[in-house]
């Protein structure tokens, strides 16, 4: 059940438009951003977050593409933004000539991978994980596995989501007055650049030291397995700061004192785990804790746990 990625966080990127604290504005990036106008909300969120993490990691755009640099992104809804727009176009078009091929090209869920790869010359592994609200956390775990296995020297891994108003309408109709959404859905992207852990433990490196994922639709059993894993992973160590990345809609994480990230950010779906991972790294960098555990769960069943530590205090 347990895997130990033992990889280093070499860079972080966070992109949440309209987040409290101000609109982030369009970041200045050392890459061609002319394709931004073609990107939908999902692709833009992931592109900005991934690019910011690559800038922080000191990675420069590569030509020709570098086969040792990989990209793994996770999402719950992927390109639904473009999917809606193309569907509306299909509804109003009288002939196929009126349909936009460029828009259809955006209706795949690996657009963040493609855009980052093109802009930054990432020619290595490219994978997109679509596992609901754990998508971003799963992508980070998968990115760590690729680094650990020597399949890539560095991987930009994270989560992205883009919310079209029609998506909110769909979810609200489902509730049909019987409740409210777990939080205001919003666009978001977050990413880490993961690289092999360095031999020198004297540095301030932050490690993704331990992680696991499993499937457990029963909330109480999900809570039991989560607790059991934390006990095993942190046996004899300082208790980590716990960040619940996803809305705890069925109380699976209610037994512990957690920082509930969704209460601060809104409902971020597949981006949530990656956003919480970036926040966890920030907390460790600010020396507020020596270790942090990011817990992501989708009510459908998947649970993914990521443990970040620093050798300084971990």
């Amino acid at each position: 059940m347990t895997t130990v990625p033992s990889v280093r966080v070499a860079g972080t990127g966070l992109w949440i438009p309209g987040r409290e604290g101000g609109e982030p504005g369009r970041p200045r990036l050392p890459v061609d951003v002319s394709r931004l106008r073609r990107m939908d909300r999902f692709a833009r969120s992931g592109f900005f977050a991934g690019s910011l993490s690559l800038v922080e990691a000191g990675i420069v755009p590569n030509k020709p593409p570098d086969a040792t640099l990989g990209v793994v992104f996770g999402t719950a809804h992927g390109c639904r933004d473009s999917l809606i727009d193309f569907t509306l176009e299909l509804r109003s078009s009288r002939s196929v000539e009126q349909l936009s091929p460029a828009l259809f090209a955006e209706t795949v869920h690996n657009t963040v991978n493609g855009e980052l790869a093109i802009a930054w010359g990432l020619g290595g592994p490219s994978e997109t994980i679509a596992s609901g609200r754990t998508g971003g956390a799963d992508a980070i775990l998968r990115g760590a596995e690729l680094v650990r296995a020597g399949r890539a020297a560095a991987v930009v891994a994270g989560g992205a989501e883009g919310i079209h108003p029609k998506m909110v309408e769909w979810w609200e109709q489902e509730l049909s007055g019987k409740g409210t959404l777990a939080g205001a859905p919003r666009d978001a992207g977050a990413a880490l650049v993961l690289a092999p852990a360095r031999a020198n433990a004297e540095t301030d490196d932050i490690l993704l030291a331990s992680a696991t994922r499993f499937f457990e639709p029963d909330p109480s059993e999900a809570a039991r397995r989560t607790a059991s894993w934390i006990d095993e992973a942190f046996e004899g160590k300082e208790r980590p700061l716990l960040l619940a990345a996803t809305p705890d809609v069925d109380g699976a994480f209610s037994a512990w004192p957690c920082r509930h990230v969704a209460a601060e950010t809104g409902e971020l779906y597949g981006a949530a785990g990656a956003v919480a991972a970036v926040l966890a790294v920030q907390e460790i960098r600010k020396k507020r804790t020596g270790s942090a555990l990011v817990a992501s769960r989708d009510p459908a069943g998947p649970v993914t746990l990521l443990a970040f530590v620093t050798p300084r205090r971990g």
Partner: protein
Amino acid sequence: MAERVEGPGRAVAVTSLGAVTAFGAGVEAFWRGALDGRSGIAPVTRFSADPYRSGVAAEIPAGSLVREMDELATGASPATCLAFAAAREALKGGRVPGAPERLGVVVGTSMGGNGAFVDWVRNGTVPAVRRSEATLFSVASDLARAIGARGPTLGVSVACASGTLAVGIGADMIRRGECDAVLAGGFDVLSEFVFAGFDSLRALSPSAARPFDRRRDGLTLGEGAAFLLLEKASRVEEQRRVPLAIVRGYGSAADAHHMTRPSPSGEGLVRAVTAALSDASIVPEEIGFVSTHGTGTVFNDRMEAAAFRTLFGERADRLPVNSIKGAVGHTLGAAGAIEALLCTLVLGRGEIPPTAGFEEPDPQCPLDVVVASPRPLPVSVRYVLSTSSAFAGTNAALVFERP
């Protein structure tokens, strides 16, 4: 910290298969159709194709999923029924671990369960399925629940390479010691949304896909599902069972070139195959057959031929290749899984199915395309390769070994 050390080279056995394609439900129906060189391509019945430049697709024959439709009728999407039918067959032949925590699920798809969502956006229709069914991940989670899996459960979605990734990631889970068995595969259902989209790209053949043929003029969409039950090979051996094949290597790579057009030189595909060969610890000379992506579009097939020339040198002229897409269409998220299944059958049964639709060689694709009738796979061949290439520039490859 708790620690589990990766098991380098831990072998992964394919022990069972399941498929639903345009040839009907079941692996045997698929294999018979493929060996006969038949084409499942026919006029579209699912929706009116009048507005489009093509009117054909490789649909699953009516009645193939009756049992699943009945059992899952309440709130289940067609995508779920399709995937369940293939998964159910795959689970019959293998042995899942006693501990549910050791069983994983990885499912690749391009559209997932989004069909009901698209219908709602387009027509305002109240979905007949549960809205929670209408997501990218819903089929994977439904499947995990249905089979009692409590290990890692992932959806993967990299367009037309999704099925290949699902098998590769599933195999990695076993190799790392995370699971003893993984149900891995892919599915996608034909929809007007996708049909219209590919037609807007002028990618659909007006007649039928003719992979690698000089007169090829586009792809034909299909629908289907395929699953492979992957198990830890040592466990299979201990239980004195015989694997169908061994998953020896996996690799993926980004083109980093263009969102829809493949790199003309096929350098992304070359990197993916090189990664898979390296993972398998073999050299290109050891590959004895390639199940290609082979969509039948001018650019894709030419790109693949260029990539194979780079990878295999002059040997590309005489290395047997085929494309199953002339027979069962381009099944998007299922394609890579169907082709992984085909590689398993080729190794186990010693025959390479012909490429339906191929008639006239293309000088720009100088490959040894298997045509007209099945070709025996020499017993000396130990390894075969499956390749996929997708929109947004994702390429993936799998290496299978004769058990």
